[in-house]
Each structure stands twice: as structure tokens, then as C-alpha cells.
């Protein structure tokens, strides 16, 4: 802490002035309160509530009441003064501790890396390389939103490898993310400043930033309200036509028709049968916690997805979630390792799809119901799916690719651009033998599976780690083989079984070649460094 004195936080943070200036900065002043202070306040609240009973008892009946109550005991033994002193002392110690830890928690962003120092006794120093960023997530828990604060999380590849800046002023977090992405993108310094100027003029940092400039002392509350009510993505920061609209009816429908509901209905029927047969109403109590849990699952999934938004920015795809607590993540180009478009059986009449992705980092900000950062489209129709795929796989999906993709999703199979399983594979793929197949397009590999639960997996060739081909005795007897593309661990597992053995060998050879070629040509870790590197959807 001795080499450089951090600047006064009030100046640096709340105005959203450039934070990425290689200087040490501090976090939002409300950080201690938001991080751990809430629990402290809650404990204080519980104590006060308990105390109230004692006070009422004294006032009404003269007797403090139950003598086993700790408060009563304290009052009866005249320790009250001492205890109050101890509490005040403890309080001061706490506040001092929080203050010091806030003072000691600093961060800086240089050209190459982001660095965070924290801790009082046990010092931690964490550095993340900017060109290894897998995504930047801005999380605003409800309480933090009231204070106008946000948590910025820089995800790098690996387990528990995230750099967290909790908390920053809301507007500053948006600004900082833009700057970090600009640094990480590999632009030349001159282009960078020009770009920074241009975007600060257009005010793409969000409404909070614009509001903070005009904020007077009296305007703070007003500003908070505007921030709270502002859309998750500032309308002018995103291309309106690229945003998928989440319809209330569709969201409710998708939840009602989810596999979880089927499970729930079966569970309810089973429990009713159990109760009517055994006449033991006691079972009902056993199911009660489960029912409450399910209710909260639905509510959290609903509130989380309600204000879902996805938009294209020059530095990648921005996905926003959440109603009260919001999260808003930017995935730079080339950070998506596999994409899966799936359709549960019950969604088919409505034509809804869900998109999941595999990525190298795991954000610690677990979204509601664990569907956090891997579900990039909770529910959408075919048009939405196309829009989202265009965003997450820029350049891979051209006019021809779209047709192939659509057939990959809805086609019943046959001769439609995919290399499908031969009829003899029916033994292993009873219903999906005509649909079970692959297609190789420039830049990506498409795997199509399932006739009942329809799935399409798209793997960008530049992200593929390796390719494998398997054959066991049964498959050998049928002259079949199974294929597997290896990507980073995630919800998407790109594999395809029961493919004709000769086709599998051809696939293996072609994809191995393509993987080498695409990986060599890929520059997405510095996505702006060469203008022709990659198609930008909105640049």
C-alpha cells in the first residue's frame, strides 16, 4: 500500500471517470455495507425486536417477564450499562474493520492486465490477463441497486479464476467494462482513445452515467429511481432489431410446459395416491417443503427471465437477465465453445426453443435456478433462435448456413444437407435414425440429434480442442461408429452416435484438418487487432 496513494474515491468512482488508467482505485464506499454489513444490520434488527418484548413487558406489567430471557437476566443484574458499552465497542471495531478492509481493497487496470489487492492480515493479489477474458459480467443485486452500486466480474478461463470488483458505482461499472473490453480487444492506442471519446459522446455507458453528470445532492434519489426503472440495456446502447423480446405469455407457457412440471404433476399424483391408499395425512407434511421449494423455483426462474435481453455490441454479445437483481454479461467474440439449440417435447406445438452454450469460465454469479450463464436464450421461437445464433456465431451463419440450421432444427431428416445415419442404425436410434446426422460448414460443425427431444449442436471449429472417433463391438457389427468433439466442459456435449463407419472416418479426417486450419486463422482473442479477422455484427 505504500508505493502509490489511491486517489480520493469520491472523485474517481462515482463520476465514472476513466478507471482503466493504470492507477490504483478503490471500490464504491457502500461496499462494506453491501458485502457483509447487511448481515450485521439484520442481527442488530433481531436483537432490537427481541428487546422490544422486554420493554413492552416492563411498561405494561412492571415485570420484565420470563427470567430465562438473556435480556431480562441482563436488566435484573444491572449489567445493562456494561453490555451497552461492549456493544458500542464491538460496533466501532466492526466499522473500523470494514473501513480498513475497504481502504485496503484496491484495483487497477493496465494495458495488459487487471489487478486486485485485498485483505487486511492475509493479503491477496490477483491478476488477470486481459486477452484471456472470457466474459465480463455486471451483477446488480437488489440491495446494491438501491445504493446505485454494481458488481463487476471479469471471467477468465478456469475454476474460481474470476476477478471480482465488488462494488462499483453503477455507471462506472458499465464504463469500466467498455474500457476493459476495448483494452482487451487489441486496438491500437490512438483508435482506442478516439473510440472512447465517440462512445462517451453518444452516451453508451447507460442512463446511469448520463444521470450522474446532472446529479445534484437533491437529485440522488431521483437518479436511483431512474436507474432502478431503466431497462436492463440502455435502448441506445443496443441495436433494437437485434434484441429478442421476451413475451410474458411465452415465458409462463414455457415454465408450465417444462419437464420440471411433468415431474411435479407425476409427484402430485403419486402423493395423492399414497395418501388415499394409506390414509396417512401425515405424508402431506413431508411434501410441503418440496412444494414450497418448487414454487420458489418457478418464481425465481420467472423473475430472472422476464427482463431477458440479448444484443450485439462491438465487443461481443451482451446478455441481460433479472427483474429485481439483474445481471448483464458481455461475451467477447470467440468465447463461446459450443452452442446447443434444444426443444423439449412439450414445447414442440408452440415451436419454442432453448439455447445453451459452453464456455471456458464459470461465473460465480449463479443465476436463479442455476440456469445462470449457460442458458443464453431461455425460450424463443425459430426467429429468435436465428437472431441469437447470428449473434453468438458471427460469420459462421450466412444465408446458406441459416437454411442448413433451420433444417437442422425442424427437418424430419432425409436428404437435407446433413449426413445422416444409415437405415441399419435404426436398432440404436429407433425414432431419430433419419435425423441423426452431421454437417460441416465453413467455420463450424453441426450435429443434429433426436426426433422426440430435438437438438442441434453447433461447434465453432476454431474453438474445438480435439476430435475423436469410437467404435465398440456392437457398433462394429453394425458398421457404425460414434463421433465426439472435445470442447471445454459445459452443458453442451457435442457427440453423435451411430454414424456410418466410412462417413465417420471421413468426418474425423475433415474435421481434424478444419480444426487446425480454423485455429490457425483465429484471432478472436484480440478481436479488433486485425480488421478482417472476424465479422462483427454491428461494428
Amino acid at each position: 500500500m505504500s508505493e502509490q496513494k489511491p486517489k480520493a474515491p469520491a472523485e474517481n468512482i462515482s463520476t465514472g471517470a476513466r478507471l482503466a488508467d493504470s492507477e490504483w482505485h478503490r471500490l464504491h464506499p457502500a461496499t462494506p455495507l453491501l458485502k457483509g454489513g447487511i448481515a450485521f444490520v439484520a442481527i442488530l434488527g433481531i436483537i432490537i425486536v427481541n428487546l422490544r418484548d422486554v420493554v413492552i413487558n416492563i411498561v405494561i406489567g412492571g415485570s420484565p417477564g420470563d427470567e430465562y430471557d438473556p435480556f431480562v437476566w441482563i436488566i435484573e443484574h444491572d449489567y445493562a450499562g456494561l453490555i451497552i458499552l461492549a456493544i458500542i465497542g464491538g460496533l466501532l471495531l466492526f466499522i473500523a474493520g470494514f473501513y480498513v478492509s475497504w481502504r485496503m481493497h484496491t484495483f487497477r487496470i493496465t494495458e495488459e492486465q487487471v489487478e486486485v489487492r485485498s485483505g487486511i492480515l492475509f493479503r491477496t493479489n490477483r491478476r488477470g490477463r486481459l486477452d484471456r477474458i472470457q466474459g465480463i459480467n455486471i451483477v446488480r443485486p437488489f440491495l446494491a441497486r438501491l445504493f446505485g452500486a454494481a458488481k463487476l466480474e471479469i471471467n477468465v478461463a478456469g475454476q474460481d479464476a474470476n476477478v471480482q470488483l465488488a462494488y462499483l458505482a453503477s455507471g462506472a461499472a458499465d464504463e469500466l467494462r467498455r474500457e476493459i473490453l476495448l483494452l482487451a480487444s487489441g486496438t491500437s492506442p490512438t483508435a482506442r482513445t478516439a473510440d472512447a471519446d465517440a462512445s462517451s459522446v453518444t452516451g453508451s455507458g447507460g442512463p446511469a452515467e448520463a444521470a450522474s453528470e446532472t446529479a445534484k445532492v437533491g437529485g440522488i434519489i431521483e437518479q436511483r429511481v431512474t436507474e432502478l426503472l431503466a431497462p436492463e440495456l440502455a435502448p441506445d446502447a443496443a441495436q433494437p432489431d437485434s434484441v429478442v423480446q421476451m413475451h410474458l405469455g411465452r415465458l409462463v407457457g414455457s415454465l408450465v410446459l417444462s419437464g420440471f412440471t411433468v415431474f411435479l404433476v407425476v409427484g402430485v399424483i403419486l402423493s395423492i395416491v399414497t395418501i388415499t391408499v394409506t390414509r396417512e395425512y401425515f405424508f402431506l407434511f413431508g411434501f410441503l417443503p418440496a412444494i414450497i421449494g418448487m414454487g420458489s423455483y418457478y418464481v425465481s426462474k420467472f423473475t430472472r427471465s422476464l427482463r431477458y435481453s440479448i444484443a450485439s455490441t462491438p465487443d461481443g454479445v451482451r446478455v441481460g437477465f433479472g427483474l429485481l437483481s439483474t445481471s448483464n454479461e458481455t461475451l467477447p467474440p470467440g468465447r463461446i465453445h459450443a452452442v446447443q439449440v434444444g426443444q423439449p417435447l412439450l414445447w414442440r406445438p408452440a415451436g419454442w426453443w432453448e439455447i445453451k452454450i459452453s464456455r471456458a469460465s464459470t461465473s460465480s454469479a449463479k443465476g436463479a435456478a442455476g440456469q445462470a450463464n449457460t442458458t443464453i436464450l431461455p425460450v424463443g421461437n425459430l426467429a429468435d433462435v436465428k437472431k441469437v445464433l447470428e449473434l453468438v456465431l458471427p460469420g459462421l451463419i450466412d444465408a446458406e448456413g441459416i437454411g442448413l440450421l433451420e433444417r437442422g432444427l425442424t427437418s424430419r431428416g432425409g436428404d437435407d444437407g446433413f449426413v445422416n445415419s444409415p437405415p441399419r442404425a435404426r436398432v440404436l436410434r429407433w425414432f431419430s435414425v433419419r435425423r441423426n446426422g452431421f454437417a460441416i460448414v465453413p467455420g463450424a460443425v453441426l450435429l443434429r440429434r433426436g426426433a422426440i427431444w430435438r437438438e442441434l449442436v453447433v461447434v465453432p471449429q476454431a474453438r474445438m480442442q480435439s476430435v475423436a472417433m469410437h467404435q465398440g463391438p456392437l457398433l462394429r457389427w453394425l458398421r457404425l461408429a460414434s463421433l465426439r468433439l472435445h470442447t471445454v466442459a459445459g452443458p453442451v456435449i457435442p457427440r453423435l452416435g451411430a454414424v456410418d463407419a466410412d462417413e465417420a472416418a471421413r468426418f474425423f479426417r475433415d474435421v481434424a484438418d478444419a480444426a487446425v486450419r480454423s485455429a490457425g486463422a483465429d484471432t478472436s482473442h484480440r478481436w479488433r487487432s486485425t480488421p478482417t479477422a472476424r465479422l462483427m455484427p454491428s461494428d
Partner: protein
Amino acid sequence: MSTRLELPDIEWRRVSPKYVVVDFFGTLIFAVIVVAATSVPAFLTKNALLWAIPASLAVIFIITLALTPRRVRALGYQLRADDLLFRKGLMFQRFVAVPYGRMQLVDINRGPLDRAVGLSELKFVTAAAASGVVIPGLPETVAEELRDKLVALAETRRAGL
């Protein structure tokens, strides 16, 4: 049947024949322990039916042991221009192709049996856990040369994640 998976035009580099010994004794030790452990209930209860478990396991292990030389011959690898090709398995065949640029690290492991005959096991690790390229039965010098070569190749073809 001649429908085994095969890649044409690939000159496979085979592992050391000495690996048969390592694999054989490794499997044998494991087999003895497993068969002994599963025999305990049968031995204690004197129930003749319970002997079926260790007996069937023993048959499986004997087949596995008998096929060891062929299984070791089925192991192969090939350094192509831009990727490492690896194959294994007799009954359950597996082919993997890993571009050099995908290498995260290379491990060389030596178990006690490996050391006795002077062999090493080379493990090529990528960001995907499923890649699983483990080349056993390489003579120590070969393994070290291969490691250095792989590192050098990966350095020239470095790619992002």
C-alpha cells in the same frame, strides 16, 4: 470381420513391446486384488453361489490378460504436420486428433512397473478434459524427446482457448 475402423495413409508409431510386460503385470496385480476381495464373502459364508462373482471376474481378467499383447500393438500415435493423432483399443477402438496449438501442458509419468523396464507414460492435456490423450509405454528417451518436440510444435502453433 474387416469392418474395423482404420485411417488410411497413416504410418502409426507403435509403443515399446516392453509395455506388454507392464500392462500384463499391472492388470494381473489388479485382478488378483479384485478377485481376492470379491472372494471374501463367499469364503466367509461358505455359500457356493457367491463364488460366481469372483469366478466370472476371473474369466474376464484372463481374457483381458490374454489379449494384452494385441492391445498393446493396437496403441499407436503419429505426429502429423499440425496435429497429434492417437489410437488405442482393440475391442473398443478410439481415435483422437489434437491440434498441437491446443496443448495446455505435457506430463510424463513413471509408475513403479514402468521404471522397472525403463518406460514412461506421456499425457497430452488440452482445455477439454475429454481429450484424454495418454500415450503409455514410451522408452524414457523417446518420451522426453517427444515432450520437447510437442512443446516446440505447440509454441509455433499457439492458439487461444
